[in-house]
C-alpha cells in the first residue's frame, strides 16, 4: 500500500496522476478462509481491518452481495455522538468516538471526521427532563454533554428559530461538542484499503445464500452466488439482512427491518455550523462540506426490504425542518433515498456469539450505527478472534431477550440517531 501524503499528491501532479494504485484488490475467492465476514459495510470492513491489524488474522474474506459501502454505510446521515443514557451504551459508543479521533491518521485515509458538535433540542418540559437526565448520566460516565439555554443554542447555531410563538418553541438544548459528522464513503473505503493491504480478500457481487453447518452443529462455511466458501468462523454483519442470513443458519432473531429515509438539498454557502436534532418534531439536519443540507427522516411503520419509503415520511420531516429553520422554506431538495435498518426490541445492537459454534453476529444497529463503526469493528474482531466477547460488547448478547437484561435505549434515547 502506497502511503497517501502531500508529497504523493505533488509527485503525482508532476507525472499526470498515472502512479495512483487501486485502493483495494478484487481477488477470486479461495476455497477456504479462517474467517468469513458477511457484509462489506463499514462495520464488516472495520471488523476485517482489526482482525488483521490487532489480532494478526489476515486469511479473511469479506463477502458483499452488492458493492462495498452500498448498504446503510453509504446511505446514512453520518451523525456521530456518544451521549447515550446507559452505561453499556456509553461504553460502546464512546469507545467508537475515541477511535474516530485519529482514524484518518490510523487509516492514512481522510475520513473527514469533524467534531462540529451535536445539539439536541428540547421543546417541552418532558424534553428538558429527558435531556438533562442524559447530561447528568453522561457526566457520570465521563462523556461531555452540556445544557444550553435557547439563546445559547441560537448562538451556537444562528439560523435556528427560537421565537416563543413557534408551534414547538425551543426551550433549551443539550450539546455534545465532540459529536459531529464524518464522510461515510471514506470510512468504508479507508477500512477496505487498510484491510486489503494486509491480505484480506474483499469479494463484491458475491451474495451469501446459505450457511453450512457440520453434524455437530458448528459452522463450516457459506454458500454464495460464486459457490461454496469454507470457514470455521463466520461473522454476520449484514444490517437489514442480518436476520435473513441468521435464518439460513437456523437462528431466529429479535429483529425487524424497516425503511429509513434521508434527503439532501441543493448546495448553499455554509449556514448550519453543527448538527441539530429534535426528537419531538422528529427531524435532524447538518450541512455537508459540499454545501448540501443533509436531512434525516423517520422509519416507515411496516417491515420492508424495498429500500424505498413513503413520501409522506419525508414531507413530515420537511415540515419539521421548516419549523425549526424558517429560512429554509424555499430551499429545493435534490435527492432522497432509503436504507433498510434492523431494529431490536430495546433499540440496542447485538454483537455476540450465537447458539451456533463459530457463528458470530453484529447487527441491530438500526437507525444509528454509523457512529459506532470503528468501535463496533474493533470489539467484534476481538469477539471472533478470541471466541469471547470484549468487555465492552459483553452486555450486547442475543440472550438478553431471554434473561430480561435489556439495554433499553428505546425508551431512553433522546432521539433515534
Amino acid at each position: 500500500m502506497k502511503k497517501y501524503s502531500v508529497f504523493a499528491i505533488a509527485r503525482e501532479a508532476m507525472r499526470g496522476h498515472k502512479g495512483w494504485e487501486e485502493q483495494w484488490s478484487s481477488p477470486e475467492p479461495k476455497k477456504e478462509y479462517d474467517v468469513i465476514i458477511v457484509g462489506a459495510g463499514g462495520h464488516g470492513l472495520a471488523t476485517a481491518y482489526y482482525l488483521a491489524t490487532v489480532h494478526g488474522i489476515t486469511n479473511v474474506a469479506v463477502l458483499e452481495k452488492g458493492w462495498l459501502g452500498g448498504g446503510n454505510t453509504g446511505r446514512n446521515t453520518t451523525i456521530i455522538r456518544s451521549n447515550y443514557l446507559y452505561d453499556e451504551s456509553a461504553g460502546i459508543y464512546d469507545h467508537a468516538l475515541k477511535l474516530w479521533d485519529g482514524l484518518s491518521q490510523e487509516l492514512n485515509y481522510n475520513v473527514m471526521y469533524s467534531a462540529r458538535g451535536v445539539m439536541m433540542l428540547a421543546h417541552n418540559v418532558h424534553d428538558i427532563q429527558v435531556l438533562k437526565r442524559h447530561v447528568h448520566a453522561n457526566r457520570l460516565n465521563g462523556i461531555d454533554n452540556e445544557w444550553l439555554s435557547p439563546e445559547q443554542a441560537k448562538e451556537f447555531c444562528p439560523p435556528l428559530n427560537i421565537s416563543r410563538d413557534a408551534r414547538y418553541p425551543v426551550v433549551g438544548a443539550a450539546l455534545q461538542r465532540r459529536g459531529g459528522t464524518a464522510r461515510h464513503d471514506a470510512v468504508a473505503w479507508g477500512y477496505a484499503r487498510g484491510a486489503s493491504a494486509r491480505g484480506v480478500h474483499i469479494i463484491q457481487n458475491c451474495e451469501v445464500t446459505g450457511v453450512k453447518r457440520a453434524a455437530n452443529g458448528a459452522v463450516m462455511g457459506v454458500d454464495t452466488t460464486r459457490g461454496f466458501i469454507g470457514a470455521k468462523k463466520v461473522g454476520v454483519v449484514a444490517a437489514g439482512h442480518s436476520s435473513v442470513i441468521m435464518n439460513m443458519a437456523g437462528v431466529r432473531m429479535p429483529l425487524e427491518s424497516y425503511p429509513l429515509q434521508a434527503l439532501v438539498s441543493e448546495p448553499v454557502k455554509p449556514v448550519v455550523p453543527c448538527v441539530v436534532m429534535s426528537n419531538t418534531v422528529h427531524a435532524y439536519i447538518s450541512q455537508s462540506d459540499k454545501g448540501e443540507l443533509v436531512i434525516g427522516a423517520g422509519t416507515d411503520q411496516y417491515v420492508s426490504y424495498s429500500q424505498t419509503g413513503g413520501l409522506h415520511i419525508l414531507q413530515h420531516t420537511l415540515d419539521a425542518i421548516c419549523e425549526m429553520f424558517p429560512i429554509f422554506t424555499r430551499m429545493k431538495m435534490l435527492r432522497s433515498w432509503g436504507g433498510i435498518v434492523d431494529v431490536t426490541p430495546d433499540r440496542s445492537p447485538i454483537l455476540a456469539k450465537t447458539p451456533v459454534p463459530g457463528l458470530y453476529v453484529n447487527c441491530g444497529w438500526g437507525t444509528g450505527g454509523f457512529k459506532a463503526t470503528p468501535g463496533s469493528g474493533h470489539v467484534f474482531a476481538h469477539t471472533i478472534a478470541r471466541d469471547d466477547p470484549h468487555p465492552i460488547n459483553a452486555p450486547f448478547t442475543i440472550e438478553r431477550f431471554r434473561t430480561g437484561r435489556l439495554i433499553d435505549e428505546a425508551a431512553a434515547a433522546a432521539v433515534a440517531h
Partner: protein
Amino acid sequence: MLLIRCPYCEEERPELEFRNAGEAHIARSTDIAGESDDDFEKFFFIRSNPKGIIYERWRHMHGCARFFNAVRDTVTDKFVMTYKAGEPKPAKLPGVAK
C-alpha cells in the same frame, strides 16, 4: 404511501388512516405467568422478519378502528390480500407461486 384494503370497510384507503401492529398469528399464551423464559422470548421478542411474504396486523385507526390481518410482499410492498381478525392464516394465497 401504501393503499390498504380494510376488510371491514371493504375499500382501499391511504396508509395514513392505518397503524401497523406487527407480525400476525403470534398467539398469546393463556397462562402467560407460567410461560418458560424461552417461550416468552419467542412470543415477545423473536420475529420472522421475512424477506418476501409477511403476515401482519394492521389497525384501521382513523376509520373503523378495527384490527385485521394482511399478507404483503416485503420486497415489493404489494398487498396479496387482507382478511378479518380471527380468520385462520390463509393456506393458499391468490397469485403467489408455491
